[in-house]
Structure formats: C-alpha cells, structure tokens
C-alpha cells in the first residue's frame, strides 16, 4: 500500500513535470528554432528548409503554426530580424540604420511588420523598400532608416507599435545555395541602433 502511494505520488508530480518540459521545449524549437532548423547571419534568421519536401518536423510545425506559405525555391530566401546587430530587441521607440554594404543579390525586398506580423499603418503608406526603390549613397551603400518620425533618405516608418520585425527577402540562387549548404559567408545588412527616445 505504501509502495502504491509512493508510485502514485511520483506519477502525479513527475508526469506533469515531464509533459510541461516536453511541450515547452517543443514550443521553443518550433517558434524560435535552433541550429538544426535555422541559419543565422547576424540578427537575420531563416528557416532554410521551409517549404521543402524534406523539411524537418520543426520547420513543418513552424510553417503550420505561423500561417506561412513558403516557396520551396533554390533562388529565394526569407530572413527575419527581431533584434538589432547588438542583440537588443527591435522596438519602434528606437531609430535604426539598416546598412547594406557589399550586399548585391539579384533582387531584395525589405519590409517592416509589428510583432504580430501585421503591416504598420503610416501616413507615407510605406512598408518597405526593394532593390529597385531604395536610393543609394554616393559610396554605393544603401542605408535604410527605420524610425517613427520622418527622416531624409530611405525612411521606413516603424509606427507606434512596440515590437518591430524586419523581413528581408532575397532572390538570388548563389545566396540561396550559400545558405542551404551552410557556407553563408555573405554578409547580410547590419541593423544599427542610432538612438532611442
């Protein structure tokens, strides 16, 4: 009887603890990813197998839970940045310079969303830039200013939403190949915090 009680007490404590641990780690791996499923270059993270038929279970779950429709193409990749290059979370309370130096894929598009993935309403009705719409500096760099209030140059409004997420889409087969084979030496844009209010 004593042994039975001991077993029952153990089960009552250990089973919920194990369930919590198992579900928590699964949720983390599905939402945040790990080296098994993502590639990280600076603050930019991509789920490199997203959309592919041989995608790992974490990637498939990530796609399903985030309402994604990834295209399994060898020529396109989509990166997300939730932090700046120093690792601090992106917020509309701060201004950032997104510096593209020696960043020359065939085509790129950069868009800004709030923490829920919604486009941010702003009077300029601007939600991103592409390689065709962004102005270049005289030295060849492209600098995009992510800020709440208007700035000269490539101003990308961050609105009043607290959390901000940047999504960079790159269409270039050599870039995609470098990410897929793990030799992602090509530097993605830096996200530099320039000030906070």
């Amino acid at each position, binding site marked *: 009887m004593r042994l039975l009680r001991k077993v029952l007490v153990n089960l009552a404590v250990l089973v919920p603890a*194990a*369930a919590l641990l198992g579900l928590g780690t699964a949720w983390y791996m599905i939402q945040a990813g790990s080296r098994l499923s993502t590639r990280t270059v600076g603050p930019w993270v991509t789920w490199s197998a997203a959309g592919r038929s041989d995608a790992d279970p974490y990637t*498939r779950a990530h796609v399903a839970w985030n*309402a994604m*429709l990834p295209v399994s193409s060898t020529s396109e990749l989509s990166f*997300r940045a939730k932090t700046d290059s120093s690792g601090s979370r992106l917020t509309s309370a701060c201004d950032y310079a997104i510096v593209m130096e020696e960043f020359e894929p065939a085509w790129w598009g950069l868009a800004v969303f709030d923490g829920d993935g919604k486009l941010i309403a702003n009077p300029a009705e601007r939600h991103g830039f592409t390689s065709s719409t962004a102005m270049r500096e005289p030295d060849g760099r492209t600098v995009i200013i992510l800020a709440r209030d208007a700035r000269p140059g490539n101003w990308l409004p961050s609105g009043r939403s607290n959390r901000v997420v940047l999504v960079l889409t790159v269409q270039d087969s050599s870039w995609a190949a470098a990410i897929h084979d793990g030799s992602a030496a090509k530097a993605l844009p830096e996200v530099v915090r320039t000030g906070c209010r």
Partner: protein
Amino acid sequence: MKRWPIELWPARLPRVQQLPVRLWLKQAQALLMRLRLPLPQWLRRLGWRRITAVVLLAGIVHICATLAAPMLSSRHAYLLVRDKLPANRMVVLPPQSPGNQLLPYVSPHMLYAVCRYDLSGGPVIVTATVADAGWALSLHAAQGDNFYVMPGQPLRRTDVSLLVIPSGPEGALIQKRDTAETPIVSPTPEGLIVLRAPLRGLAWSAEADAVLQRATCTQVRP
C-alpha cells in the same frame, strides 16, 4: 559537496538484483561520483532515477508534440483564409496594406492571385503564366507545405496548366487518364494555389495585374 545516492535499485526487488542493468547502473553511478558534478541541491534530492524518468518522458512528449503540431495547428494559412476566399476560384488580391493583409508577414512587395481549392467535388485545373524572374506559381497543402512550385525565369514567360488531384485511389484513377494538363497530386484534399508577381514599380504593376487576372482555377468533374 554531496555525492550521488549510493542505492540505485530498490533492495526490495531481489529478483532483479542480478540483472545486468543493475551492474550498468552501478558503473554509471561510480562514474558520476568520480565526476562530482556540481548539481543543484534540489536535483540531487530528486534522485537521478526520477530525473532520468522525467527526461525520457519529456523526450517522448517533445517528439509527439512536434510531429503532431502541423495537424493540430489552429492558425495555419488555409484556416486563416478559408472565410476570406471562395473555393476553387482564382482571386487577384489588392496590394497588401494594413488592415487588408491576407496572412501575417506576407510581403508587401508582391502582387498575389490565390485560389483556395477543395478537391472533395473533383480535381481542379489551374492555368497561369509565370512571366519573369521573381514570379512563382506555388501549390500548398492545408498546413502550408509547398508540394509544387514553378519559379519564374529571367525574360521567359512560362504557361502552366496543372490538374490538381487528390491522393489515394481516386487520384490514381484520374492520373491514368490522358489529360492535356500536368497531374499534380495534392497531399491534402484542401489547400492553396498562389501565383505571385513582384512589384517592381508602378510602370510594371498594370502588366503584372493583367497576367494575374488571366490565371484560372476551375473544378472539373472527376
């Protein structure tokens, strides 16, 4: 520093005293004692049999939860657009804007034509033109998995004609027939067909819109 508990196997279970597993446990215990791992007090109090049980059980829960997650998701792309789009009809969406966004994180640099297909009434024929680099016609299962894609090629227009059929014996029968369209087996009876065109500036948007408008998605009798 406290050492690991000496007794690893209950002494009340004499029948298993001689099992090799007991010897293995003894060896493992001896190794851990030599290592003198600086474990927190509460973990040492729990005992490593309980810790092992929790870790093993958590691992099983982790694997099951990860594998089941796509099926259990209540917010995959198909569910989110089901009430917004009619079934088996290609709809050209207006440019993505705040409050007029099909899905989270959908690119504002693309124009989209989307068909929500449902194969319960028969297969679906899709015709579309993939006009240039950056364009893509993609077929997605209900959970978002991309099971077919036709990416655009630079300066080359590709006309695509597909017959989306269900998996299983019904699909196999349709596949045996002679059809002008390329048969594509959908892993789920419902899903999404997305034709997207990059917004390369105002000068190109009218042309891109015209190509998107020509895309069709029609259900045919099985």
